[in-house]
């Protein structure tokens, strides 16, 4: 009897350990695989070509700058929309809205978070793109701007739910203290509550960036997929192509082991490094907030 319970204890322990350590293993394996397939690109393709401004794989032009630029411009555009919108929504939900509005808005935002991006892509192609083409009088509605708007829709729920958590963890005593000093509701929100939730909001923004830069399907459907390095500000309303969309659309038809194949993997490495950097930044920010909270408690 004693023996069997000890055995099952040991087995459960082992299983938990294995599932815990497996995440480390998987990330390591993915990294090794990416590096093995992608790093040879540096040897095969000259750096001037790899970081050139022309992406035309059929004639061996593998400049990833237009793709990098496409990803950045769409992501930045999305964040410019999603951050103010997301923070505004969370402030509304946690500080202003009456409870019944809350109970409607919050589930709706969760639904938005769970919506497959390909469905948003439909809406982008069918509704948003023609709308923007008409509104701005463009040759095509499939542009960086349309992509940014869709990405903003995708990133907003992430930002809202984490920001709202952060606002909810601000002690009610802060609000009372500010109000008791004669602050108005808005002065309390912008002067005390939001700054007190600052680190949580920064984490929300970081994760929103991560969500945007990794998104593939929706941007592939609406950005027009033109890998050109644009000149000037009107680049915002011109077609672009992101790194993710390039990998997704070209990986299927490339010869295994060819330079093109290796460059696509190299793009994967670039994406990996970017999202790693964002995650490190996010955890650094939340770590800092934790040590501050500990200091307050001590």
């Amino acid at each position, binding site marked *: 009897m004693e023996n069997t319970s000890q055995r099952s204890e040991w087995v459960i322990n082992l299983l938990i350990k294995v599932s815990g350590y497996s995440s480390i293993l998987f990330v390591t394996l993915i990294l090794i695989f990416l590096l093995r397939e992608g790093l040879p690109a540096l040897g095969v393709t000259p750096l001037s070509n790899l970081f050139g401004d022309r992406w035309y794989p059929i004639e061996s032009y593998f400049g990833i700058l237009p793709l990098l630029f496409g990803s950045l411009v769409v992501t930045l555009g999305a964040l410019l929309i999603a951050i103010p919108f997301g923070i505004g929504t969370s402030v509304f939900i946690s500080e202003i809205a009456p409870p019944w509005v809350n109970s409607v808005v919050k589930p709706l935002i969760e639904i938005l978070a769970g919506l497959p991006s390909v469905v948003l892509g439909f809406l982008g192609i069918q509704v948003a793109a023609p709308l923007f083409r008409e509104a701005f009088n463009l040759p095509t509605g499939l542009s960086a701007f349309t992509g940014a708007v869709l990405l903003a829709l995708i990133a907003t729920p992430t930002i809202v739910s984490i920001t709202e958590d952060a606002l909810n963890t601000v002690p009610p*005593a802060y609000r009372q203290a500010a*109000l008791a*000093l004669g602050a108005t509701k808005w002065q309390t929100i912008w002067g*005390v509550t939001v700054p007190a939730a600052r680190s949580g909001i920064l984490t929300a923004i970081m994760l929103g960036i991560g969500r945007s830069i990794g998104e593939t399907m929706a941007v592939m459907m609406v950005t027009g997929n033109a890998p050109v390095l644009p000149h000037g500000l009107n680049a915002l309303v011109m077609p672009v192509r992101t790194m993710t969309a390039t990998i997704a659309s070209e990986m299927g038809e490339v010869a295994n082991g060819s330079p093109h194949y290796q460059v696509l993997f190299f793009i994967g490495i670039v994406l990996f490094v970017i999202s790693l950097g964002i995650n490190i930044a996010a955890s650094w920010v939340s770590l800092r907030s934790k040590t501050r909270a500990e200091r*307050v408690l001590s």
Partner: protein
Amino acid sequence: MVNPMEKIRIEHLSIRYSDGTESLRDICLSIPANQITVLFGPAGGGKSTLLRALNRLNDLADVQEVSGQILFNGVNILDPGVNVVNLRRKIGMVFSRPVVLPLSIYQNVSYGLELMGERRKSKLDEAVERALRRAALWDEVYDRLKDPASAISGGQQQRLCLARVLALEPEVILLDEPTSALDPVSTARIEGLMQEIKEQYTIVWVPHNVQQAARMADYAAFFLQGELVEHGPGETLFVKPRDQRTQDYVTGRFG
């Protein structure tokens, strides 16, 4: 009969929360100026509710029904037309746990003034120093005003909260168990401080035990389950209470 020393008069005040807890029933009480009035009694008696009615902080809570009047300088502050922001500047409040805002020591004190629209650096510097001195904190923090307020000790934080209130030059200071989270030394400092400054303000204090109530009260009011059982000058109420329930509570027979 109008008492010239009267600062706040509460007339037939009743407050009921929507979940039925902590209500006040028909409270009539006069709060004298330039004295410490102590509201005491066992938990759930309505002391904090009354305190929060005085600066309308109850507006935030789930209050279902308020009736009666609270006259402050002759004006009924429960009137919906009253400017709550101005009222709260005249009636400051210190909470039971030191709540420093996530700002620097200096900004914690200057915050209320900045909310009022004061932008001039020299005025702010002057007001911050005066408030910190009056709260007996200046000597301990003058060389690190830029540090985050969360870095100083709990007792210092509570005095910082007091300084924050004093900076607004209020007429009334409400203290909701201000020393319940503090050590005895810090508690004694706050108590001494309030004795020193009471001449210039009207102080309403909810103490966290009956000993503190007896120590601090110029005037005292005993609350039991929403009822104002007895009130009167501290020296008589704690020595010769008229009501048996007050007697029992003060002597520690329950509570």
